């Protein structure tokens, strides 16, 4: 239970801070909402624990993120690159903090971008879910932390 609360804070703090620093976007926590035609970015860290992080949002928000990062208008081909780099940095910060918190090590490969509501696993009872809104866009972030226990 303590794990869950600590990781909840790490995710929430970093989503807000990194989004603001990299894109100038201030996300506001919101009520659960369905995101029609959502795109997904997924990152999986593995090592002495496993941590899956998902971000789902609409194309309008992704375009805005990419535009802010590029500082110029973007094309649809630009979106996956900027979205995955944004998520790479966000995920790296979160995984580093979890590593420090538990004095354990997990690493990840580059995040993967999907043009739909991709999900590798069903939502678990202990999946942490966050909803944010930005102007008329919505962002959903999910984190699933699992300790790997020796048999």
């Amino acid at each position, binding site marked *: 239970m303590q794990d869950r609360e600590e990781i909840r804070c790490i995710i929430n703090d970093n989503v807000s801070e990194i989004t603001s620093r990299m894109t100038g976007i201030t996300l506001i926590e919101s009520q659960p909402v369905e995101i029609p035609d959502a795109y997904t970015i997924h990152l999986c860290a593995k090592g002495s624990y496993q941590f899956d992080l998902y971000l789902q949002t609409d194309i309008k928000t992704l375009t805005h993120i990419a535009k802010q990062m590029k500082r110029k208008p973007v094309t649809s081909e630009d979106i996956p*690159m900027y979205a995955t780099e944004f998520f790479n940095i*966000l995920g790296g910060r979160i995984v*580093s903090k979890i*590593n420090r918190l538990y004095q354990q*090590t997990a690493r990840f490969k580059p995040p993967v971008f999907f043009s739909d509501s991709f999900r590798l696993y069903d939502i678990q009872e202990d999946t942490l879910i966050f909803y944010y809104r930005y102007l008329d866009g919505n962002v959903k972030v999910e984190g699933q932390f699992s300790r790997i226990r020796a048999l």
Partner: protein
Amino acid sequence: MEKKILVVDDSRFIFEEMKFKMKASEEYKIAYYCSDGEGLLDAYEKYRPDLVTVDIVMPGIDGIEASKRLLEKHPEARVIIVTSMVFDDTMEEAEQIGALGFLAKPFETSDMINIFDLAFKKQPLENPV
């Protein structure tokens, strides 16, 4: 004289971001780009940059392994690790292979200049690996 920098990162965003942040610098020029760890050695031998920045999280071989291979062959290379994965194990590993510093993503212009300045004050190890 302007010091030329090779950026190794699977995302071209970091190269563009560094170029943007360094455009006013008369000391450093973000000059070359390489998109993966496998290409680092060839890119280094082709361009002979004064400093290399290497991302850790890349497809194929990661930035630590790519830097290790570079420094085995070119111990004179100045390598800075650029990553969002800043934690003790990675930093120790990077130091052991002879990297001269860490730049945490996301970064400001002053962070880049400080770490580049520091790398040019340090001597690369003769046999870092």
